């Protein structure tokens, strides 16, 4: 068990192809034989899903790039004050609810670690699945920790924490329209939260399908892609937090 190479199940199906690694793998040359080749090619599907996620991340990045440029533009903009007849700055420096935000950051980073553990665990499971299916071969009972469940809990914890940070800010009188700084705080945290919720929903879907006896290779694709998305969300949060802190 310990010497099994998990990459085999992903790569060896591409034997039928040549001329670069950008083609959808097909089973090579055994036109007449149906047996065994009717299973979907998980390696190609995983690669495609990861590529799709990378492309999707670019568009999400552009959304936040646009918010950032609006943030910087709006912060530097002088405002006409009708009482004094002069141009003033209406950007109120926001006292961020730091304790809450730091706790949330910690929760999210921790969830990124548990998500990575979930990803590695299911990669190993998927690699071993073909071996286990051989009649007479038993790999013994490996203990699987519910890392995915732990990530969902931590993720929900992060969202709850963000909600509490909102409450703290509104208790101090900073609402969405109070100042452009508070507008951006609510906007950026909400936009990040909505994207994170998307990740959570996919994770819950993955937990559900694990109960429905779907092939572990199929579940692995969902978990793998969600894991990369989740890391991206953690990174995005660090960026947003940095923007809100360093450009108060």
């Amino acid at each position: 068990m310990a010497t099994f190479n998990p990459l085999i199940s992903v790569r060896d199906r591409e034997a039928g192809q040549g001329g670069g690694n950008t083609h959808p793998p097909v089973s090579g040359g055994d036109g007449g034989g149906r047996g065994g080749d009717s299973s979907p090619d998980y390696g190609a599907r995983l690669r495609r899903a990861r590529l799709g996620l990378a492309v999707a991340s670019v568009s999400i990045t552009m959304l936040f790039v646009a918010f950032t440029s609006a943030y910087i533009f709006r912060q530097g903009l002088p405002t006409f004050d009708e009482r004094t007849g002069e141009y003033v700055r209406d950007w109120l420096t926001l006292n961020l609810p730091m304790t809450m935000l730091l706790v949330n950051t910690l929760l999210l980073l921790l969830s990124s670690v548990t998500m990575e553990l979930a990803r590695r665990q299911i990669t190993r499971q998927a690699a071993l699945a073909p071996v286990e299916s051989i009649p007479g071969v038993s790999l013994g009972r490996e203990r699987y920790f519910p890392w995915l469940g732990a990530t969902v809990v931590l993720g929900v914890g992060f969202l709850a924490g963000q909600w509490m940070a909102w409450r703290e800010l509104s208790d101090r009188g900073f609402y969405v329209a109070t100042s452009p700084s508070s507008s951006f705080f609510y906007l950026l945290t909400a936009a990040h939260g909505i994207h994170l919720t998307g990740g959570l929903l996919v994770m819950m879907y993955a937990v559900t399908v694990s109960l429905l006896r779907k092939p572990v290779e199929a579940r692995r694709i969902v978990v793998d892609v969600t894991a990369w998305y989740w890391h991206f969300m953690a990174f995005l949060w660090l960026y947003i937090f940095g923007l809100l802190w360093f450009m108060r």
Partner: protein
Amino acid sequence: MAGSTGGGETIMATSATVHAHAAPQGFIRKYIFSLDHKVIGLQYYFLALTAVFVGMFLSLLMRIHLVWPAAVLPLVGEIKPETYLSLLTMHGTIMVFFVLTTAPQGGFGNYFLPIQIGAPDMAFPVLNMLSFWTTFVAFVVILAAFFVTGGAPLHGWTGYAPLSALTNSGPGQQLGADLWITSIAIFCIASLMGALNFITTTLDMRAKGMTMMRMPLTVWAWFITAILGLLAFGVLLSAGILLLLDRHLGTSFYIPLVVVNGQVMGHKGGSPLLWQHLFWFFGHPEVYIAILPGMGVASQLLSTFSRKPIFGYRAMVYAIMAIGILGFMVWGHHMFMSGMSPYSAFAFSIMTMAIGVPSAIKTFNWLGTLMHARIRFQTPMLFAIGFVSLFVSGGLSGPFLAQPVLDIPLHDTAFVVAHFHLIMGVAAIFGIFAATYYWFPKMFGHMMNEGLGKIHFFFTLIGAYCIFMPMHYLGMAGQPRRYSQFTELAYLHHLIPLNTFITYAAIITISAQFIFLFNLFWSMFKGPKASDNPWEATTMEWTTATPPPHDNFGGKTPVVNHGPYEYNVPGAARDYIMQTDPATVASH
């Protein structure tokens, strides 16, 4: 059926390995919520066809009102200034988003990109279906704006703040504007999903031997267009979100201290320029999103019907990339009027004129392709040549407007209307027509009527020039755009006859489109049966059955041995070598 005309090498594979989903049986899964990229392509196409007739009808109302302001028109009655503005807004929005973005990319791109690269479907078929239905919802939402209290919005397709950001700035600015913003936001999400699919499919699903530099120029155009969409639509979405927050949550991103109807609004400190920057950062690439697929189609057709390889294939690819990259650096040229720093304006001006370089490379390569060729003047080719003609005529006024000193007097006149209609509107529409006449046999298994096609072409080409060429003169003579009436203005009286001529030209040109509509639907059922490769073309859609089977190549995975434009290769038996022909056929 695969290879019936090409006879190339194929690798057998079970359908399960090449195609993730089986052919659906029921009507709903087959035609409504289909996962098949070909059905989805047709859905996009017919959505755009519906939209273009709505958009055209609105333009007709505007043209009639301009020259006969007292006329009471069907469906809208008497046209008040605000009615005119809402017609203008809806015409622009529907045409730009639901026609020029939807048909070339969502329609033809969806249908032919996977086949041209030898793939059985898009990378993510479910996402593909979702992106079409999301676009459909966006279309329904925008049409709903006509029917709500206050009517459709007045802020133009560019949705300039603060007009768009205040709910009490005009009759259409309440629910109508909300529906407009919502529709655009939904459309952004749909386009992002589509772009994701196009990019992944192109990068990951090419058949064996289909290297990037063997891709047809149509595929290159769809691919670069998808990248532009991926980078641009996220920015428009963010701009739309800020606009909704300004309208409903009292924020001041776009709204400065402002008084409306004597009432001081609660906002202060925002800047309408922020909207303009965000909007045009999307808006300029959007011009290329509309035109690049047309360029791809023109290249494909000029080569095929000239029976010559495209002149300078690599230069064409790099020119598409250069146009794509430069397209993101020129948004400021839409804002010369905004009082921007002359240094910024200078930079934007230089970058804008730089786009002339790759555009000229493309144009000269098209002309080089036509040079010394035995051209087959069939309808698709006529529209492709028409595309080049319109691209040049519309493009040449670009360097005028790229200069702030000329743009400032011309910006709010009919000159700009003429410029962007020729290059972005009519040229792109000619790309769509060329693609329709060219791919119709593959899509529906019948040929379109050539005679009707040619009549349609000449009416449309001459008609479009009669409408838009004189508009340049109107602009230089000072006729402002967006004005609902000008007949009362003494200094424009001498322009009434020319305006009347334009309106007549518009009525005739629009009427001629019914010839196309008739030809389209009549040929679908009554046209002569099409062979698998009626144009003797080389790319992969012509190697498969007509119409193509569910998995495109009937359970086989094609192998590509040739470039996309190998016409009249010395030593070859025929005057064209298909991409899937065996490598032993003479090649260069």
